[in-house]
């Protein structure tokens, strides 16, 4: 049966449905600038028709709201976020090392190396001059001080990076706990209705976590799982599995999943970048600086120890002997006996102590290779080249990831982002439908009044 009452009901439902539509639009507009927000739309469907011979529809009903989100795009976005955060961190860290070995503006290690070897050549012009001997001592001390300081800087960087790794793990664990909580709530809410807002929040939290490391999400058949890039659990069925921190035998921080050391398998994000910086980059530059200090000390000592000072003494090392390459840059020191008495510098190659041949030979070491390695200067040259090219490629890398991230964020926006123009159009749509339904109600009201008036004989 279809009558005026049915028309009224249908109109009422339409009013309600379009009102909900307007509310959803309003929510979208309100969240136009909210990070992580996915636009929603109201889901309407027609109500089942009634009547036997003449079947008439009963209007519209709202079956829910839907968030427009492409989980594949979200996941790609997380991965790219990891890559970007990691490359930014690498670039920043390498720039710090680059600053240590910046030769621009005539400061840096190179002038000190040159001055040091030149001071021997200068001494050769007057081997007994106390001033020239003092000059050798001073240039040697400036050089050792500089190398010690740079070695210290590298060591401090390593320690600072190690602390930052601990901070990263702590921050990751806070996020992991929050993600577990939200996943729990999503499960509870979604027994009834899609938890759009909670999912947005979780997506945003995972994006934040992705800045620290790459994660993987599996969300199938109601079981939710978040793991590291290498499948170590972080959230399992609504329960957090926080990462742990351990200490390696050489006192460095290691990241652990349960009792397994996962430090080296973490990929992406600031955490992996910091681990690589601590375990690969810094040791590599430490090693190069150590090698320079070691070769220099050995070369100079070898010549100096067989040469003679003006008093005919021999067998004295110029630098305190260094046993092994490791830590050489930290321990490089001028022999304290020479520092205390520059007359002990051996400038002569004959037992009488007369002559300048040893001073010349020491000065010429600036051009002497350390087979299979090159001269000290050549070694330093390749260090500068390496830090320069690594920093440059890290910068390019970071710029590329910035572009790719922007592209993906735009892709996400094209799916989930709010467009004011679109929402405004929706407003008009819902508004007109609301107005039309209201019009129907008023027409039905008129018709009913007319019908009622028929009985009064007016």
């Amino acid at each position, binding site marked *: 049966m279809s009558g005026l009452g049915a028309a009224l009901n249908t109109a009422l439902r339409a009013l309600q449905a379009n009102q909900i539509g307007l509310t959803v639009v309003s929510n979208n507009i309100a969240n136009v600038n909210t990070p992580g927000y996915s636009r929603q739309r109201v889901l309407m469907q027609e109500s089942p028709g009634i009547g036997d011979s003449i079947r008439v529809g009963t209007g519209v009903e709202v079956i829910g709201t839907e968030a427009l989100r492409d989980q594949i795009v979200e996941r790609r976005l997380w991965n790219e976020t990891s890559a970007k955060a990691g490359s930014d961190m690498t670039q920043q860290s390498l720039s710090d090392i680059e600053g240590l070995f910046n030769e621009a503006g005539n400061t840096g290690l190179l002038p000190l190396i040159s001055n040091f070897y030149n001071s021997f050549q*200068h001494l050769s012009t007057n081997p007994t001059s106390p001033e020239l001997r003092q000059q050798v001592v001073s240039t040697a001390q400036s050089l050792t001080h500089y190398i010690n300081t740079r070695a210290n800087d590298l060591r401090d960087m390593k320690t600072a990076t190690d602390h930052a790794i601990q901070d990263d793990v702590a921050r990751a664990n806070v996020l992991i706990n929050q993600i577990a909580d939200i996943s729990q709530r999503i499960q509870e809410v979604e027994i009834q209705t899609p938890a759009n807002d909670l999912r947005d929040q979780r997506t945003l939290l995972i994006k934040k976590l992705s800045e620290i490391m790459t994660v993987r999400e599996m969300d199938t058949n109601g079981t939710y799982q978040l793991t590291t890039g290498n499948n170590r659990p972080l959230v399992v069925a609504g329960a957090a599995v926080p990462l742990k921190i351990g200490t390696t035998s050489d006192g460095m921080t290691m990241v652990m999943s349960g009792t397994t050391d996962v430090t080296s398998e973490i990929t992406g994000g600031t955490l992996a970048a910091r681990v690589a910086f601590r375990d690969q980059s810094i040791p590599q530059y430490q090693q190069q600086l150590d090698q320079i200090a070691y070769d220099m000390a050995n070369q100079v000592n070898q010549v100096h120890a067989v040469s003679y000072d003006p008093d005919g003494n021999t067998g004295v090392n110029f630098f305190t002997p260094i046993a092994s390459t490791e830590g050489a840059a930290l321990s490089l020191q001028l022999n304290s006996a020479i520092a205390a008495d520059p007359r002990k510098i051996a400038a002569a190659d004959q037992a009488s102590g007369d002559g300048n041949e040893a001073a010349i030979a020491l000065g010429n070491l600036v051009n002497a290779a350390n087979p299979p390695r090159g001269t000290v200067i050549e070694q330093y040259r390749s260090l500068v080249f390496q830090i320069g090219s690594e920093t440059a490629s890290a910068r390019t890398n970071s710029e590329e990831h910035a572009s790719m991230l922007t592209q993906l964020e735009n892709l996400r926006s094209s799916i989930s982002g709010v467009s004011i123009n679109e929402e405004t159009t929706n407003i008009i749509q819902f508004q007109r439908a609301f107005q039309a339904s209201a019009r129907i109600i008023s027409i039905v009201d008129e018709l009913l009044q007319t019908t009622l008036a028929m009985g009064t004989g007016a």
Partner: protein
Amino acid sequence: MRIADDSGYRNLLLDIQRIAERMQASQTQISSGKKLTKPSDDPSAAADIVNVDSERATSAQYLDNAGTAISRLQIADNALDGVQQVIDRIRTLALMAQNGTSSPSLSVEEISGLRDQLLSYANTEFEGQYMFAGSNTDSAAFEKASNGTITYSGNSDEVRLQVGKASTLQSQIPGDQVFSGSVDIFQTLTDLMAAMSSGSTSAIQTQVTKLEQFSQNVSSTRTKLGGLMNGATAAQNELTQADLTLVAHLSKLQDADLAQALSEFTQSQNALQAATAVGARVGSISILDYLK
């Protein structure tokens, strides 16, 4: 593709940042005058600069050494010039004595004085170093004993200085090659004075012959000094020339091309203006403007 409101702002921000970075880079070039302010600006140029800087610093020392060598050789040459004049005078006195045209006692007295003058030439000092003492430069080259005998107390080292990666240059001539070499001039003078006192013309003649031989030795030593000075000057010229080449190379490696930097700066400035102008209009066209 569906365009959401935030895409426009996101792109704009990225672009403006990029342009600002480029602008800053050219600005740094202009203000510092260098296109390379850190190794990552151009790693291989930075590495080359290490080489060039080191080579220049070492060469500067070589240049210094060559200068020192020239000064020393010059000092030695001046001393030998004095020596020759003294010898000439002694020879004149000896010849006069031979001819009997002078008073032997007066001549002997003068020669004795001239012998001391020769000693002081032989002990010429430069910057606190005895120039004719071999490498034993901090004590006098010749010492006069109480009985008047003068002996060489230096050594026979020919001191050399480094003036190039693989080249050294002799900067001193040991006194035993000049004053007490094939002719020991101090002994000769002692003998001459004895001969003059005794009045033996043949004995005087023996010593005059030695004097002439000594004079020739000094002459050839001065020729050698001249050769060494030429060598040092050539080394100096070579080093100076090489340094000019290195400076030019260095400039190519690190100096900014100001014209290019300025044009890049202007370019990015224009781009920034355009981007910000467009940015101000992002989102300014809206359907809302057409609804009442």
